[in-house]
């Protein structure tokens, strides 16, 4: 377990690689942003420098991973967050289960995206590429510097202790291996949009080609963020053991706001790409989205918010982060204020048109971002200014966010049916008549079967079904389903551009998520009861039998395990195990809930602390809860589908790079 010479060398090598990457990034940033007119030769150098930055940061990252895997406790980070008995997967994921390591991961993804732009952006105009890579390098230099000076993951301890103090047990889960990398890929991916926006503002040139380059990156980041948030939500649901899937916790909001803004950006970039309109707004959204991503990462890290996500509790660190954010975001908005007027607007359209619908989408999404932002920051501001401690809880968000989303969902199915420039609302309405009838019918049916437990449930159901079925209206129209022979329809549908399919699937996914949310909110049942081995309890037709209780040791914890059998209304039985673990190194207890899936519904069981041989169990029946995450998966899948469309492929086809950028006015 003692650090061998070889390990010590690799740690110092990693440290050196990170320093070198920062130095290269600093030079690249200066060269790219100041000498951007230098053309192709500088572009080649910057592209190579970007790839080199990635290689160096990857070396640094692998050095830390190696120290964790080999339990090299001369690395302070490994001492604080690892343990030699921990399973391998958690040794690796433990690298980013702390402040320093997560910053390093953040930077790794940042340079990865920079390298991808360098690799795929060969056909970008040299001036634009110089500026984009320059802006990207500036971010690397800023956050790399922050890491090295205030949160160095390569800090050593001499002499090394024999054993580490282990990772927070809640984080010892497969979720940690997946959730942060996905979320970070989403957050950081928006840095590309930010860099492109900076490039457009500095060069004063922006056109449809710009939007065509930016949109795949936005889409890619959005996919990661969608999956990251869904994954985080599911993780919280099964690991934290409270049976909830969304808490409107500031940290969740911090990841949700960039998602909302990124969704708006996807739609506004579409208008810009197709109609050369909404340029200034799209630039503004690009900046906002990445700013919210930064806020998301670092509001969490600054220690202002206390939660499972907070690693830093060093106030000076928080101050440095806030300063970096203020300079970057403030600088971007200053540039925006100075330069936005030089961008020429184009593309006239009537209010009732595809453009109009997309503006409405942006209006509601942007306002929703504003509402969530107010709810998240208001307690912080009030605390700082007035010293009053309040909490803004779920009711606030449900009210404001719900009120903004309802009209958005109502008008959503119309959007894809409206032609560009000028449209006929009545014609679109006729095509949606089928979806509307189906939605009303199903809403009445479900409400009658399930009973109306909360008054808004039918409205939610109606909107969910409406969006889900309305999404297919364009496919039905385009495939001329029912009006021509089936074989012909299928041929037409297969031949449709993939973006049409991705729009339909994306909107359908949203509808499914809404349905899942409504179903769980309205028809979830819960039972808290004392139960001893041999006894049974009943909930929503499911019978739960407590078979036995035992204490078993795990690799680095002791577990109180309850064995249960659950009998479904249909008669099938399944065995469940719910645990309470106590981790050896930290003495910390965690609850491992038992979850059994029936179709899209779940049966959720939590075991309480034993007292005098009695056990309290808390059980929930969650109807159709899986729709929430299934919808998110469908949305992400729709994004992937859209990326495979040849018009949008990353590294756009040759001809798109050719048209000269239009000059600024």
């Amino acid at each position, binding site marked *: 377990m003692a650090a061998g010479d070889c390990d010590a060398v690799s740690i110092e090598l990693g440290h050196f690689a990170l320093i070198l990457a920062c130095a290269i990034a600093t030079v690249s940033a200066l060269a790219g942003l100041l000498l951007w007119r230098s053309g192709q030769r500088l572009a080649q150098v910057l592209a190579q420098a970007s790839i080199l930055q990635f290689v160096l940061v990857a070396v640094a990252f692998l050095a830390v991973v190696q120290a964790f895997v080999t339990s090299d406790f001369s690395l302070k980070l490994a001492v604080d967050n690892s343990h030699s008995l921990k399973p391998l997967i958690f040794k690796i994921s433990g690298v980013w289960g702390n402040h320093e390591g997560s910053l390093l991961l953040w930077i790794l993804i940042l340079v990865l995206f920079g390298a991808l732009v360098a690799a795929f952006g060969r056909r970008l105009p040299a001036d634009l590429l110089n500026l984009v890579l320059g802006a990207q390098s500036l971010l690397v230099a800023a956050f790399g510097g922050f890491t090295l000076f205030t949160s160095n993951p390569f800090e050593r301890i001499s002499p090394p202790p024999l054993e580490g103090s282990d990772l927070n047990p809640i984080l010892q889960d497969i979720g940690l291996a997946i959730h942060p990398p996905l979320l970070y890929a989403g957050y950081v991916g928006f840095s590309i949009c930010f860099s492109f926006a900076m490039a457009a503002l500095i060069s004063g040139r922006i056109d449809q080609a710009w939007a065509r380059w930016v949109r795949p990156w936005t889409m890619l980041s959005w996919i990661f963020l969608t999956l990251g948030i869904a994954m985080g939500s599911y993780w919280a649901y099964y690991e934290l053991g409270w049976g909830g899937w969304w808490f409107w916790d500031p940290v969740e909001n911090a990841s949700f706001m960039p998602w909302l803004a990124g969704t708006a950006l996807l739609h506004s970039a579409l208008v810009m790409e197709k109609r050369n309109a909404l340029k200034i707004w799209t630039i503004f959204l690009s900046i906002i989205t990445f700013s919210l991503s930064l806020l998301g990462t670092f509001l969490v890290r600054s220690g202002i918010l206390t939660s499972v996500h907070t690693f830093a509790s060093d106030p000076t660190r928080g101050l440095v982060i806030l300063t970096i954010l203020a300079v970057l975001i403030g600088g971007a908005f200053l540039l925006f204020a100075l330069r936005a007027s030089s961008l020429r607007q184009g593309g006239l359209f009537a*209010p009732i048109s595809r453009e109009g619908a997309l503006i409405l989408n942006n209006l509601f999404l942007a306002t929703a971002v*504003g509402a969530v932002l107010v709810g998240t920051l208001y307690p912080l501001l009030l605390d700082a200014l007035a010293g009053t401690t*309040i909490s803004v*809880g779920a009711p606030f968000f449900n009210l404001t966010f719900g*009120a903004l989303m309802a*009209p958005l969902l109502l008008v959503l199915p119309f959007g894809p049916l409206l032609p560009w420039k000028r449209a006929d609302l009545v014609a679109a309405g006729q095509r949606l008549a089928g979806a509307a009838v189906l939605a009303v019918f199903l809403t009445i049916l479900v409400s009658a079967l399930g009973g109306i437990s909360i008054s808004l449930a039918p409205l939610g159901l109606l909107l969910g079904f409406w969006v889900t079925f309305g999404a297919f209206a364009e496919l039905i129209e385009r495939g001329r389903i029912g009006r021509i022979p089936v074989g012909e329809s299928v041929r037409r549908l297969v031949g449709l551009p993939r973006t049409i399919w991705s729009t339909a699937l994306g909107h359908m996914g949203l509808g499914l998520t809404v349905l899942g949310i409504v179903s769980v909110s309205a028809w979830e049942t819960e039972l*808290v009861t004392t139960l001893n081995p041999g006894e049974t309890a009943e909930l929503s037709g499911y019978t739960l039998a407590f078979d036995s209780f035992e204490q078993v040791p795990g690799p680095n914890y002791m577990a109180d395990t309850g064995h249960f059998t659950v009998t479904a209304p249909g008669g099938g039985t399944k065995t469940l195990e719910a645990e309470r673990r106590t981790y050896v190194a930290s003495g910390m207890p965690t609850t491992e809930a038992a979850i059994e899936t029936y179709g899209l519904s779940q049966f959720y069981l939590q075991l309480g602390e034993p007292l005098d041989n009695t056990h309290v169990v808390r059980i929930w029946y969650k109807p159709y809860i899986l729709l929430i995450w299934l919808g998110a998966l469908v949305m992400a899948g729709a994004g992937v589908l859209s990326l495979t469309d040849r018009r949008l492929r990353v590294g756009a086809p040759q001809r798109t790079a050719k048209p000269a950028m239009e000059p600024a006015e």
Partner: protein
Amino acid sequence: MTMPSAVRRKGWSRKQKRLAVIMGLGLVLVVAAALVLTALRDQIVFFYSPTDVQTRGVEAGHPIRLGGLVKDGSWVREGQSNTFVVTDGATEIVAHYVGILPDLFREGQGVVAEGAIGPDGSFTATNVLAKHDENYLPREVVDALKAQGEWRPETATP
């Protein structure tokens, strides 16, 4: 919530159309702002320490967050119903909660509970907030303890 229908009428100049659209958008923003402000007034939950509850007075049944330390030896469990005393050193309030308490609920540790004060002055919690590790003491509780001179950093780190 679609565009104002008047916009579609023939014979409006471009300027008027634009004005109508901007007013429509502005209306949505105003409604949203009003909604946010109303919700902020009605839906926020104030944090109270036991001393705050006694000195400032809390309307019975009004939702609040109560935070402090769980008094040593005060936790009584009967089946799934729990009774414990929340203290900030100066004042004590009896709290009731039915259900499974979070993993890290311990006597002598910090706690934040959501609920309301009943007519008899005791607190009925609807939700006891789970904490994420044994060191994490909610900042509100730290502040409240500091206010009462009960803050001992060596026993708990925020």
